[in-house]
């Protein structure tokens, strides 16, 4: 196979297929505009194995899932699930498949048992069969001890498992899981995968599972890769990574700092993609040649070792393709030079506590962020990252402890203190019905910029973030990546010394994420202190230092290498951040006591 796309697996006859899609297209009418979600999608999902539906947010995964579950009707094309025509007989399909939507419908004010009873009633599970099935499912999901607990009181991972249990009260032959692992902590994520494997092996289920995490591809028997409403490829995961075999390397430099090295590498013509991984830079080369020889003129001291290709490498290589080095301005240059806080702690948190009623969202969190550092708060959804963040920014009163930002307490300090920070919220929080220019004008004046400086900064923002082309488009109509650029532009216009980024990359594709991090790196190089929250384990690698949070507490603090070396087990620093996170959670006494 030499083409850029992997051709679909084509041995199974229609009878044996769990699910087939033939030329399926779907569009939506949003604000009088036609949005295309899927165009001419065809594929065959084979029975009794896990097929991963992988792609970044907005690729069309959820639409495809809903079409398969008979919740949406396609504009064109045929769908067949378990040999039933989905379009013609949606009720019959729904009676035979299991479908778990992205935010599974657990009734949070019902207990675990009551939720199971409801779905057993709705799925018509006979009363006599229930005790055995319940016991089996609860044992599998590790929820035995929580039968009476209200679903709303479960942790994020347990909720997700209960959702799966409820979907399975009546064993389906085909199981559709829409992003069951996104935002879930790594331990629960691994447990969810184990449940899925068990279902396939012990009960012979066919599973179609969608995910935005590219690294989950390797866990699937087959992968359907989606992007922009189309299928880029359908094959075994190894077949994808084989395409980039011989092109993946780890580059280390004894002299250059990792960010500088990454920047230089990514500008080199032989390099397609360069990504920080711990102390090293992971490189996908343009071709299969000897990278050592090609890079020698750049710096002869570089240590270059070959590494095994990953699924993400294929994705990035395919999308970046030959048209590399898009003319985008990937580095941001601030006019303000120097750093008033050099060598000091810019952000301090001492025993921060935040309670909501009797719920302890943040429990004695302490850390220090040095000047010019990229500092990460890493944790699953619900770990307390955003709450910590809001307290630091002065958006939420603290229940106990102290915190300072740039030497000031933002809760009590004058508005002038806030001029020193830039904040980019988790959701797109600009005015969607204002144009790009109007947003920039409004926020620049809100940050107190006036006259010539305001004009200059708006021009700077438009040029730096390549927004001129969208000057008078409504911000809500921008492509996702540009929305994010606009948000970053707004946060940076007043040239803050500290930048807060709350889950900045959730929902953007890997390419946009790379571009974003390049920009953030260039800011840090100019002395801006960056505090970033993320639930992408790999993003922790880009941070200078990080804390790992779970259930409101800080479990570990240090550089990424530190954390991996300490908690990576046998693999030590070669472990992935995710492996370190898992062993950290498993050794944490607090958690084992709760479980």
């Amino acid at each position, binding site marked *: 196979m030499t083409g850029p796309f992997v051709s679909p697996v084509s041995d199974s006859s229609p009878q044996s297929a769990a699910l087939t899609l033939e030329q399926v297209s779907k569009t939506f009418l949003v604000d009088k505009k036609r949005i295309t979600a899927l165009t001419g999608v065809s594929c065959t999902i084979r029975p009794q194995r896990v097929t991963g539906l992988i792609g970044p947010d907005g690729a069309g995964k959820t639409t495809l899932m809903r079409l398969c579950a008979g*919740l*949406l009707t396609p504009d064109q094309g045929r769908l067949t699930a378990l040999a039933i025509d989905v379009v013609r007989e949606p009720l019959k399909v729904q009676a035979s498949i299991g479908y778990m939507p992205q935010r599974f419908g657990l009734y949070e004010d019902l207990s675990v048992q009551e939720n199971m009873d409801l779905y057993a*009633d709705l799925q018509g599970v006979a009363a006599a069969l229930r005790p055995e099935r319940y016991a089996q499912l609860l044992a599998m999901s590790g929820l035995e001890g929580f039968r009476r607990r209200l679903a709303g009181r479960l942790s994020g991972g347990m909720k997700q498992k209960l959702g799966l249990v409820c979907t399975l009260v009546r064993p389906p032959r085909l199981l559709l899981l829409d992003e069951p692992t996104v935002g879930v902590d790594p331990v629960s994520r691994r447990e969810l995968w184990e449940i899925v494997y068990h279902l396939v092996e012990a009960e012979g289920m066919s599973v179609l599972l969608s995910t935005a995490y590219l690294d989950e591809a390797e866990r699937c028997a087959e992968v359907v890769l989606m992007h922009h409403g189309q299928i880029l490829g359908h094959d075994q995961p190894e077949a994808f990574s084989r395409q980039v075999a011989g092109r993946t390397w780890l580059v280390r430099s004894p002299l250059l700092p990792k960010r500088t090295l990454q920047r230089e590498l990514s500008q080199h013509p032989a390099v397609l993609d360069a990504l920080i991984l711990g102390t090293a830079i992971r490189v996908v080369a343009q071709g299969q040649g000897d990278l050592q020889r090609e890079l020698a003129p750049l710096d002869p001291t570089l240590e270059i070792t070959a590494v095994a290709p990953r699924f993400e490498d294929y994705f990035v290589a395919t999308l970046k393709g030959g048209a590399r080095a898009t003319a985008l301005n990937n580095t941001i240059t601030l006019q303000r030079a120097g750093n008033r806080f050099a060598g000091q702690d810019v952000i301090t948190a001492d025993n921060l506590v935040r309670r909501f009623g009797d719920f302890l969202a943040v429990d004695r969190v302490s850390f220090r962020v040095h000047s010019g550092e990229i500092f990460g708060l890493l944790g699953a959804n619900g770990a307390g990252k955003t709450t910590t963040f809001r307290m630091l920014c002065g958006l939420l009163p603290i229940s106990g402890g102290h915190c300072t930002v740039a030497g000031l307490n933002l809760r009590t300090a004058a508005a002038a203190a806030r001029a020193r920070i830039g904040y980019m919220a988790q959701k797109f929080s600009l005015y969607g019905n204002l144009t790009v220019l109007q947003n920039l004008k409004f926020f620049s004046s809100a940050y107190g910029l006036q006259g010539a400086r305001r004009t200059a900064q708006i021009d700077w923002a438009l040029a730096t973030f390549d927004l001129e082309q969208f000057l008078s488009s409504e911000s809500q109509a921008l492509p996702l990546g540009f929305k994010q650029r606009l948000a970053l532009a707004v946060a940076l216009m007043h040239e803050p010394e500290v930048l807060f980024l709350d889950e900045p990359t959730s929902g953007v594709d890997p390419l946009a994420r790379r571009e974003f991090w390049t920009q953030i790196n260039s800011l840090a190089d100019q002395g801006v202190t960056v505090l970033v929250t993320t639930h992408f384990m790999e993003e922790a690698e880009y941070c200078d230092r990080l804390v790992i949070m779970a259930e409101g507490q800080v479990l570990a603090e240090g550089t990424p290498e530190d954390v991996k070396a300490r908690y990576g087990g046998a693999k030590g620093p070669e472990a992935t951040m995710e492996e370190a996170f898992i062993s950290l959670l498993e050794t944490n006494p607090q958690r084992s006591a709760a479980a």
Partner: protein
Amino acid sequence: MKPGSLLRITGMIRKECLQVIRDPSSIAIAFFLPLLLLLIFGYGVSLDAKNVPIALVVEQPGAQALSFSGGFYQSPYFAPVPMLSIQEAETALRQSKVDGIVWLRANFDREYLNKESPPISVIVNGVDANTARLVEGYVQGIWFGWLEQEAERAGKKLRSPIQLEQRIWFNPQVRSTLFLVPGVLAVIMTLIGALLTALVIAREWERGTMEALLVTRISVIELLLGKLIPYFILGMGGLSLSLFMAKFLFHVPLRGSFWLLLATSALFLLVALGMGLFISTIVRSQFVAALVALVSTFLPAFILSGFIFDIQSMPLVIQGVTHLIAARYYVSILQTLFLVGDVWGVILPNSAALLAMAVIFLGLVYRKTRKNLE
């Protein structure tokens, strides 16, 4: 009935009941709000004028003037404040310390004895038109009463061409509580039926539970019944509470049949539930659902049902609009059943209108509810 249908419906009902019990906001809408509304309308709001403060200016306290003004002190409708000059009274009126002025000038006695019409000036604060009209009427009443009394004392019949003999049926003391409390019932039932139902379904959309429900084996009719039955029961519970309060707290007589009241209320509740479900088929956020329910069901029930504002005195166009308001028919049934009795001429046409609306709304809901996300 399809196999398992009963199981699915009871499963849904059990779930709804558990949710109502555990969710304080449902309890608040079903029981606390009716309680509050009844207390406000039973005790707080009264459309009767009682103890209206009125400035009484008697410039020269002659025998006739004193005798006439004495009538004001005995009247339950007025709380007279004696004042010495009209200027003082006008100031008081301007400052809203009194709602009206009765001004007997210095020549009151003399003119009266001369058989001329004595000059009484009545000035009423027209800012509150309702009270102003009442004050005006009551003053006239006192005036005629006094003339009659004077004439009797002189051994004569009052020379008046027409004798007005007034009797008020069904509510002889004209207590507004007696017609407000039954009216409130209509508002309460709208609230439970439409607002609560629209809210709980919108909540299922918001929390993503609806998507999970839709892919189970449940059919549209089972889903709807699973929502209708529990909130129907809840609504009847709210009704019972309100009836109990009306009877024992506000002593509103129930002259018609209790069973007829229950039956017509059940009918109205079906309309309200139909409206709530209908809203929820269009709107998928709790906030919007609440707004739509308040504006399209609750406010009309308040304003256009004839519960406070008389429909006959509305402009013709608005009168036409009231025919679209289910509460109008129910208020009419309620007031008749409570205060008059089983008047079939009123009950039957109004019930027929309610039945038609129930069929229309529930039919629309059945047609519009789909088992998909399109």
